[in-house]
């Protein structure tokens, strides 16, 4: 969704935020499960499969050592980038649309997070 300055509404309604919150929660949990599977999976494979820590890739490094030494870091970047891009896209699509005044949250002056402190 694309907005010019004039079209951007600097207020969110509770319903919009709640829907976005639920979607973001789903995005975060899905990515976290994938992340956890990889982080726990690499040491788990080292403990359970001989070829994972005993096998040799080109040059002599085992698949398990290669994953722990550099493969996992690439995975963290990919999953982080995917989650950030998706989360930001969700927010852009679900929040910031112009709403009728009566649908807005009751307090017109609200919110700007800097104003809460």
């Amino acid at each position, binding site marked *: 969704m694309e907005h010019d300055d004039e079209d951007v509404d600097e207020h969110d309604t509770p319903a919009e935020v709640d829907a976005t919150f639920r979607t973001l929660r789903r995005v975060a949990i899905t990515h976290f499960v994938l992340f956890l599977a990889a982080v726990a999976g690499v040491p788990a494979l080292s403990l359970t499969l001989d070829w994972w820590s005993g096998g040799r890739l080109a040059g002599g*490094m085992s698949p398990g050592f290669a994953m*722990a030494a550099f493969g996992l870091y690439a995975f963290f970047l990919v999953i982080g980038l995917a989650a950030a891009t998706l989360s930001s896209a969700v927010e852009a699509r679900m929040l910031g649309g112009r709403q009728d005044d009566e649908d807005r949250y009751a307090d017109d002056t609200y919110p700007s997070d800097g104003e809460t402190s």
Partner: protein
Amino acid sequence: MTATSIGTLVALIALVALITLVVRPRGTSTVDFYLAGQRVGVATNALAICGDYFSAASFLGVAAAVYVSGLDGVWYAVGFAAGFVPVLLFVAAPLRRFGEFSIPDFLGRRLASERVRLVAVGVVQIVILSYLVPQAVGSGITWQLLVGHGLPGLSPYATGVVLSTAVVAGLVAFGGMRGTTWTQAIQFLVLLGALVWLAVVVAGSGFHYSEAVADLSAEPLANPVHDESGWHLQPESNQLDATQPATFGQPGAAYGPLAQFALILTLVMGTAGLPHVMNRYFTSPTGTAARMTTVWVLGLAGLFYALAVMLGTAARQQIAAAVKHHPWLEELTVDGVLRVPEHALPVLGRIYGGDSGLAVVAAGALVAVMSTIAGLLLAAAASWGHDVYERHINPRATQSQAVWAGRASTAVVALAAGGLAIAMQPAEITPAVPSIVAAMVTWAFAIAGSALTPVFVLAIWWRGTTAAGATAGMVVGGLVSVTMFVVGALPIGPGLGEMLMTPTLVAAPLAALVTWFVSRATTPPADVERQWLVLHGTAADRHAERLARLTIASLGPKSRRSARSGGSARSGADTAGGDKGGHDADG
């Protein structure tokens, strides 16, 4: 130590001091002193977070842990790097959008409770001190190796501790978050530069990573121990299979099956509770910028730890081979293996670059220590100055008084950390753990991950979290983790001790459960729906982006054209938020 080495170190410290002087806070507002005006851009903040996060434990400790324990040491690198994924998924954007000064401030306002704030201050201070002491230990060890002699009346180790904490405390008190942000960013580039230089010269000398792992794994892993008969090599016992020798490329040299997962989980959970790292997110212009900052951090962390693991492996192979050509290695090694594993990178630097190489690596180590100490002292200052002094001791304090309270607290906390580091005897603890510096930092991660992270995540993602629940969760998580440390430090048998020293696997779920149960029995804050809009809405982000666009547009026709094309070319506020806020602030 040569004149070149001294010159390198002096030039580095002078550079950091100069940057602090140039970009110091101009006013006396607390937002400027603690949060750098909340206008730190994506790239700058990512570099500063890396400077904050990559401490002596990362620079010296990860390579040392790999050097001593092989694959079991690599789990440190995995855990340290992985910690930012949960931060990105659950914490970064909402935390920034809520927009406070510190973790206690966030929890206190979110749960509308001064008791929560004060309990959080207590936990945060324990985490900060647990993290500060190993940094000071790391600087002492580095000074000992690099300079070898101390100030009058002080040992070389104590001199390193005193000088590093004193210099950084002075810079932080003077420069605040703005000065610290830029010095941390520069310090991280210096740190990364030292690591890249070392990796390039090692690789250029014919080192073959994959073959080195295979060669080192072909024989039992043995490390120096000191007993009645003096120094000698002792094979590591295999924690997974007592009938097999432990080897470099296989798990089991340091941790049993459960302890391996416990270590990784402790580091993964701990990052989201580290006060000095989380405080940096409050300096981002928007929540989206905070999220994109974390993506940058993940990339930089991956590069950094991959290099650290490679160099730990290289040190294990190359130092043993270099002993016959470098007589100075005799007193540092036992049959080709270093007595103090934290010496791995500095020694590798000296082998390949002579005294200048040693100076480059030592400068990297000191920079890692200094930038992390700076972040920790700032977090301590924000916590004491804002959450205690401004809130409870002198609620009518002027901005100037509050800033001076923060400055005074940096001095007190630095003094406490330096005193504790000097009182400790790292040489006596080193044989018990793969790397004393990495192990001590792990304790800080454990307390943070057990006491703060569960409460923190629940406060962000569950409306039902209450002040009573959060207080109970922090207390239970903190107490359980500390109790498990104490029990783990006792001689209770192989495997179990290591697991208890990384207690998050047990303590964090327990803290989350207690928070949930107590919260269910009590009432959430009355304005939770209003808070939800701030945490998970993007109104403030859009407001900040609009202001940024207007500011750019007001600069001139040329800037206006680029701002307009940037705004229309981008598809969605996602990239615009992260990029624009950051670009504007960077400029």
